[in-house]
């Protein structure tokens, strides 16, 4: 199990992560969601030992990960733009990784066939998507305990994504591998991940098991006689709020019955529960945050 405990990270003078507390259980697909520059890649780099946190702890089975050979052996990081050696082929990169990770040769061959990749073709001749496939394939064949994929599925065609999801699901089922994936495609994260963390301005705003979290988050739409005021909802744990004159849309965290009974005291004309969409919640959250920054609400 991986734990982030009150983690802080500065890049230069800019605080990128602040007081991040996340637990990543074994055998899951963990999704990291956040806007550009929110700190997702920094999160993964801290986890893989590229960066050292400026405060707090990052633990794997209660051991610090940074510069810890035993922990790092259990983690393999594939960045959003993987590095390859000059004129190297996939076979060369496999040889490099095999110094530290046990590459499952049968699976490697199987994936090569599945994704129609030539291991002897120089990687610089691969398209961006093919290069990404090649490295994810290597990561999966290496079978680390934690595979970290930074925006790995972006730019892959739907068919290849589907194959990868299938392969990842198999690997998790048969070998207790965990995949930690950062992505902009929130719909995909919602469908594919077991647990998630949403990072906003360097902090984790929401995290947990996907189903539990979604069950605890409610998407509510209401209409009133008069103009809606934000302070009406101060008593609720509001994740995002979108007010349009007499209509308001809310993403609220908490017990559904308690929320509903409180909202009824506001005498809305209409009160309805809508399906929770992670993507919409994320977009609203970003807009909400921008408004907070602009108006200081």
């Amino acid at each position: 199990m991986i734990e982030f405990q009150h983690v802080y990270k500065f890049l230069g003078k800019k605080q990128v992560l602040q007081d991040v507390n996340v637990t990543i259980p074994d055998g899951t697909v963990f999704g990291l969601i956040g806007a550009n520059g929110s700190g997702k890649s920094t999160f993964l780099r801290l986890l893989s030992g590229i960066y050292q946190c400026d405060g707090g702890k990052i633990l794997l089975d209660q051991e610090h990960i940074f510069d810890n050979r035993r922990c790092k052996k259990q983690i393999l990081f594939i960045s959003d733009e993987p590095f390859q050696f000059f004129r190297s082929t996939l076979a060369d990169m496999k040889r490099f990784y095999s110094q530290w990770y046990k590459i499952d040769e049968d699976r490697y061959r199987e994936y090569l066939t599945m994704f129609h990749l030539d291991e002897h073709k120089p990687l610089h001749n691969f398209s961006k998507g093919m290069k990404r496939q090649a490295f994810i394939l290597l990561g999966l064949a290496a079978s680390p305990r934690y595979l970290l994929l930074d925006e790995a599925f972006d730019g892959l065609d739907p068919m290849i994504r589907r194959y990868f999801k299938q392969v990842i699901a198999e690997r998790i089922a048969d070998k207790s591998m965990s995949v930690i994936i950062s992505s902009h495609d929130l719909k995909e994260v919602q469908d594919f991940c077991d647990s998630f963390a949403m990072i906003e301005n360097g902090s984790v705003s929401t995290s947990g098991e996907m189903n539990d979290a979604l069950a605890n988050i409610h998407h509510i739409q209401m209409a009133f006689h008069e103009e809606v005021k934000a302070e009406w909802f101060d008593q609720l744990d509001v994740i995002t709020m979108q007010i349009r004159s007499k209509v308001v849309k809310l993403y609220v965290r908490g017990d559904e019955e308690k929320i509903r009974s409180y909202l009824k005291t506001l005498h809305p004309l209409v009160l309805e529960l809508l399906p929770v969409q992670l993507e919409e919640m994320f977009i609203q959250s970003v807009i909400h945050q921008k408004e907070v920054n602009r108006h200081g609400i």
Partner: protein
Amino acid sequence: MAYEKAYGKWYWKHNQRMLATYLMIAATLIIVPQLMFPYDPQSSSIPLALSAYVVFALNLLMALLVPLYQFRFLFNKRSVDLYYPLPMKKTTMYWLNYGLGAILVCVPNMIFFINLLWEQASHAYIPYYLLMMAGLVLFGLSLYALVTFFVMKCNSLWDACFAAAAVPISQLLIVSAVNGLLRNAVTELVNNGGSAYEFFSLSYFEGAQPVMAGFQWISASLNAFFHISQSGGNFLTLWLQESTLNAWMLIYYLLLLIGFSDWACKTYVKRKGEDSEQQTTSKFIFPLFISLITGSLLAYNITDIAYLCFTIVLFFLMNALAERKLVIKTKMIAVLAIYGISLLGIHKVLIDTNGFGRIHEFYETDEILAVRSEYHDYTDSEESEMSSIIMYVFQKDPKLIEMMVKSHHESVTNNVKHNGEQALGELIIDYELKNGKHAYRYLYFYPEDAKLIKEFKDYIKEQNYAEDDVFIR
């Protein structure tokens, strides 16, 4: 250890083409002189000397390039993403790359040594070659350690290239600057001539940086080696006589090597992954080297305006490289002003105090151990009274020294009187003083000096000095 071995194996395999090319080039450069001139340690010094200098030049070149090659992954964010998460301790990764790099630096020495073993039927001279090679390896590796340390402080490849080039350049400039600063003071204090060596022997100072130490070492080793191969004797005694380096200097280089290798390791371990491709802000790179280079150039000749302008332009260019844009800040101008004022101040103090009482126009005969003098006749014709006095002499003869001092006094008087006009030739005097210093004087000679010069020449002829020490036409 399994990972380390595997990494080493992978490294050789991954770099085998580059390594093969390097081996071929090095072997060709080292062995060609041996093939061009037949090898004979009893009579010929050329192939051995050429190969030794080629080996050391390759050592130096590799000491500058290898740290950049071995640690280039630090200067690219994507390669940092590949290397940093690998399950290896940072110290292990450093020492592996550093060790493999050190082998690359020493490859020319190995080729040279194998070549000598192959060429020599009897291995009587092997210990001498080994001693020479050991020194070159030590100087090469010291420079390698220094450059590696500075490379570790850089965040981009360009900055690392600047640092790698700046290490030997700034070292050479510092030596030249001290030499220039002192020499300028001496030449102002005496009538023509004078050198920094009149203050103190600069040989240890020069030997304190690896490039010059290496060349001194080769020269001393070869001289001692050829002396024993022709006349016999104890190599180590001869070598110590020839060399300005001593055991303390070797200990200094050993400490330099160990200290900077370890400091570079600590710097590598402390490096942050996020520093890659960022502006280099370490005080050990641009602030240090810009200060050293500018200070040295100004110290070399602060009074020459053209030279001063060149130095100022270079100073701003180096700052532009550091800042990635051309800027002129008040702080920079203040730094230049401080340099200028300080150096002019030092120069004035040296002049006003006669070099802290160390510089004299003339030395007493009992202060002089030996004298070397040369007369060069400008007229060089049969009709000239001076035509036969192109002379070179190096002697410890007290009588000769006394005559030389007398001639020197006379010559200075005539030089002041004529101020360089209608000179017949020039006189170069090098006094080796008993306190280990050297005093050089460059003077013109005039018809009035003819009598003394003739006496001097006749005396030399009478003495029957060894042929190597005296040359008279």
